[in-house]
C-alpha cells in the first residue's frame, strides 16, 4: 500500500491557474506572521520565569551562585520526574491523583523487600519500580476499560496506595540502603548532580517521543478528539494504558530519588507533591481538557515553582506568607501568558 502516486490523472476540473483563496499577499504580512509564530513558540510562562529569576538575582546575593542553581535542579528533581508523567496523562485529557501515593508505595515496597524480605537490593529496586508501574497499569485499566473518569479511578488508587504504604511497616520508615544507591543523589557528573541529569534525560526522552514518534504524537490526537483519533485507527485504549503505566513508573523513579537522597523510605513521602505536580504542568501551559501542552512548558512551570520556593527560603520570607506569595505569583505568571489565556476560555 504505497503512498498514492500523484502521476495519476489530476482530477481537478479546472485548468485555469488556481486563484489563491488565502494566499498570503504582501511580504510585510508574511514577516509579521513569522514574528508572531516565533513569539508563539515561546512558552508563555517563560516570561514569568525570567521576571522571577531576575528579581531574585537582585534580591538575594546567594541566588545566582552556581551551587544554588544546582541545588534548585536537585530540589525539583522528584516533582519534575513526576510532572513528565502528569503531562502525558493531561495531554490525553486525564489526570493522575495517585502519583504521590505511588511514590511512597513503591519506595516502601522496595525497602521492605530489601530490608524485611531480604531480597538482593537490585531485585528489590526493580520490584519497587514494578510496583509503581503496576499501580499505573491499574489506573490505565480502570480508565480505559472500566471507563471510570480518571479523577475517580486515580482517587481510588491514591487512597489505596497511601494506605498500603503505611500498612507495610505500620507507618515506620525504613533506612539503611547500599552506598551506591545513596550516591545517586550525592554525586555530580561534571558538576551537575546525577538527579538533575536523570531529570533532564527523562524530559528529553519524553520530549523526543512526543515530537517524533507516532505513538507519542498520538497522545495529542487522542486528547484533542478521542473519537477522531479512534476512527483514524489510533489505539486509544492502549495509549491510555501505556501512559498511565509510564506515569506510575516515573512516580516510582521519583520515589527512588527521594529514598536515595534521605537514605530512608518513608510511607508518607510524596503526599504533599500532588498539587505541585499538577500545578507545574498547568502553569506550563497545558490544558486540563487535553490535547495541548508541551514538555518545554512543563519544564518552565517546574522551574517557576522551584525557583520561587528556593528564592523565598533564601529571602527568609515568613513561612505564613510564603503561600500567599506563591499564589500571587502563580496567578500573575499565568495571567501574562497570552497564549494560554487566549486558548482556554
Amino acid at each position, binding site marked *: 500500500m504505497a503512498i498514492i502516486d500523484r502521476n495519476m490523472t489530476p482530477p481537478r476540473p479546472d485548468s485555469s491557474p488556481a486563484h489563491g483563496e488565502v494566499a498570503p499577499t504582501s511580504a510585510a504580512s508574511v514577516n509579521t506572521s513569522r514574528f508572531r509564530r516565533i513569539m508563539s513558540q515561546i512558552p508563555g510562562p517563560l516570561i514569568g520565569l525570567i521576571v522571577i529569576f531576575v528579581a531574585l538575582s537582585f534580591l538575594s546575593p546567594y541566588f545566582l551562585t552556581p551551587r544554588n542553581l544546582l541545588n534548585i535542579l536537585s530540589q525539583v528533581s522528584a516533582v519534575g520526574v513526576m510532572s513528565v508523567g502528569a503531562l502525558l496523562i493531561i495531554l490525553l485529557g486525564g489526570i493522575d491523583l495517585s502519583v504521590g501515593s505511588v511514590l511512597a508505595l513503591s519506595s516502601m515496597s522496595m525497602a521492605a523487600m530489601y530490608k524485611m524480605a531480604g531480597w538482593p537490593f537490585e531485585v528489590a529496586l526493580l520490584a519497587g519500580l514494578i510496583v509503581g508501574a503496576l499501580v499505573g497499569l491499574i489506573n490505565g485499566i480502570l480508565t480505559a476499560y472500566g471507563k471510570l473518569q480518571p479523577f475517580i479511578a486515580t482517587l481510588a488508587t491514591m487512597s489505596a496506595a497511601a494506605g498500603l504504604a503505611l500498612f507495610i511497616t505500620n507507618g515506620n520508615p525504613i533506612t539503611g540502603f547500599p552506598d551506591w544507591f545513596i550516591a545517586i543523589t550525592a554525586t555530580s557528573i561534571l558538576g551537575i548532580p546525577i538527579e538533575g541529569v536523570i531529570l533532564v534525560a527523562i524530559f528529553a526522552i519524553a520530549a523526543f517521543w512526543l515530537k517524533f514518534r507516532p505513538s507519542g504524537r498520538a497522545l495529542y490526537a487522542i486528547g484533542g478528539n478521542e473519537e477522531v483519533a479512534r476512527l483514524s485507527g489510533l489505539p486509544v485504549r492502549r495509549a491510555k494504558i501505556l501512559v498511565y503505566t509510564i506515569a506510575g513508573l516515573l512516580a516510582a523513579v521519583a520515589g527512588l530519588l527521594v529514598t536515595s537522597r534521605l537514605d*530512608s523510605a518513608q510511607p508518607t513521602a510524596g503526599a504533599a507533591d500532588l498539587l505541585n505536580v499538577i500545578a507545574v504542568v498547568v502553569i506550563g501551559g497545558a490544558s486540563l481538557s487535553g490535547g495541548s501542552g508541551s514538555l518545554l512548558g512543563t519544564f518552565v512551570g517546574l522551574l517557576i515553582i522551584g525557583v520561587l520556593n528556593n528564592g523565598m*527560603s533564601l529571602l527568609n520570607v*515568613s513561612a505564613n506568607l510564603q503561600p500567599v506569595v506563591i499564589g500571587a505569583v502563580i496567578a500573575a505568571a499565568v495571567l501574562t501568558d497570552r497564549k494560554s489565556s487566549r486558548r482556554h476560555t
Partner: protein
Amino acid sequence: SPTVSPTGASGNGNENGKTIGIAVADQKSLFYVAAVDGMEQAADEAGYKLVTLSANNNSGQQVNQVQDLITQQVDVIIFIAQDATSAAAGVKLANDAGIPIVAVDQKPESGNGKLATYIATDSVAAAEKLCTWMFDQFGGAGDIAILQGPLGSTAELQRSEGCANALANYPDVKVVAQESAGWDETKAFTAAQNILTANPNLKAIFGESDAMALGAAKAAQQEGRTGLVFVGIDGFPTMFTAVADGLTQATMAQQPYLMGQLSVQDAVKIAEGNGGDIPKLQYQDTVLVTGENVADNDPAKFYGPDFK
C-alpha cells in the same frame, strides 16, 4: 478477617467484654503509632478489647470518630486529640454520653469538659531545655534556623514557644531563618539546603521533630558543611543512630510507648471503678539524648519493642 485490627483479633482478650475506645490523631507519625502500640500491649495484658480510630490529622473527622466510639458504647475513651483547641468538642461529647475520657498528649484548651486524667509530655519545657542545650554548644552566640512543624498544629506551637523561651535568655542568638517543613524529612532537606546557602555563618538548626533534624543534617552533609549543631524532638530510633554516628547532636526523647501503656492502665482502673486515686495531671519525663548518653539509652524504652 484482615480488616480487623490485631488487637480485636488477639487471643487472650475480651473475657470481660469491656472495651476501650481510642481516638488518635493519626497513625502515620511514629509518636502516635508507638503510643497505640503501648496501649495494645497494656490492653492485651488486662484482657480488654480496643477500638482504635485514627483521624488522619483532621479535627473535624476526629469529632466524628468520638461520636462513633460513643455509638459503640465503649467503656472508656482514650483521646489523643489532633489539636488542643478543638479537643473540647470531643470531650464534651464523651461527657454528655457519660463516658470517662483519658486525654493523652493534648489537653483541651477551652470548654469545661471533665477529664479523668491527662497524660502528656511537657512540650514547651522539652523544647526550652533542648534549645538551651543547643545554644550552649556554640557558645551562646550566633545564627540559628528553626524548621517548624505544620503551622498551627499544637505541637508546632508549643515547641516554637519553648524555644522562644530559651531564646529570651540568649540575646546573642539570632534566628535568621524559620520555615515550615511539615514534620517531613524531604521538605526539611530542601528547606535546609536553601537556608544553608543563604546563611554561611549558620551555627545550628533546631528541627521541631527528629525527621526534620535528620533532613537538615543530611542536607548539610551533602553540602559539605561541618561543625553545625542539629537537634530534634521525638527520640526516634533512627535519631538515636544518627546521634551515635554524629550526624545529629541531640534529641529530646519522649516516651509515647509508656504513655500509651499508662493510659490503658488508667482506663482499666476507671472501667473497674478504681479510678478515684489517679492524679489529674501526669507529665512524663523527656530525656535529652546526646552523643554522651546515647549508648546508655535503649530506644525501645521510648518507642516500644516493636520498633523497627
